[in-house]
């Protein structure tokens, strides 16, 4: 018997760690992995609420989130390859062409 709030707090902790990684890391691939971590934290909330409200829709949303994450990973990693080919770096501090 695990309290529902533990799942939600665990999800919040993982989401916070994902935000921290997104802000602190300097490697563009690691930043991308932090985004995946945030998506997974939200998925855990979805499944926990799906149990709580006895609705299968929560699990269906998780299914769609995973599909979108797969598409996002494919396109994002292709963009990273193009950026690396043009700039020879993965450090986001050196990628400042669009910085105001």
């Amino acid at each position, binding site marked *: 018997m695990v309290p*529902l709030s533990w799942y939600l707090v665990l999800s919040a902790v993982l989401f916070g760690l994902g935000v921290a990684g997104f802000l602190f890391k300097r490697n563009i691939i690691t930043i991308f992995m932090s985004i995946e971590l945030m998506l997974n934290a939200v998925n855990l909330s979805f499944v926990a609420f799906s149990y709580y409200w006895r609705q299968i829709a929560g699990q269906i949303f998780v299914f769609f989130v995973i599909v979108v994450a797969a598409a996002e990973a494919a396109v994002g990693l292709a963009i990273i390859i193009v950026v690396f080919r043009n700039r020879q770096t993965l450090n986001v501090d050196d990628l400042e062409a669009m910085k105001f």
Partner: protein
Amino acid sequence: MDIFLFLTFALLAVGCAINLLVQRHPISSALSLIGVLGSLAVLYLLLGAEFIAAIQVIVYAGAIMVLFVFVIMLLNAGEEERTKRSRLARFLGFPLFAVLLAQIGHVVYRHFGAAPPVEFGRFMGSTETLGRALFRDYVLPFEVTSVLILVAIVGAVVLAHKEI
């Protein structure tokens, strides 16, 4: 029994997530993320979502993370160099993180503190229920995602193929 499983894999997930932040080499971060995904799959099983746990392992930990590791090795990514972080992030980052967590924890305990606990075995449905809902109520979003995947494939091929 399930509370021990929950605590073990919750601590494993948080530990791997912290390791993702601490490690400097992208490969180590990717392996830590695989640890997080695997422990989350066990938590999904504890919540009665077998199908989600299965695709978490197959699609996420299998396909997506292999893609990540493949790109890290293709680009020969080394350790990230330490740069001068902004002073604001260094001094305000972790206090703000703690404040955010305290806020979320407060809201969760106020609204769901008295919620009935998750009882292992008292689940509402199975993969069959999910499949019926997916192919009956959610069939249009399901078909639209196939278009999304097609666009993503074409985009990835175009981006990685040509000189841009």
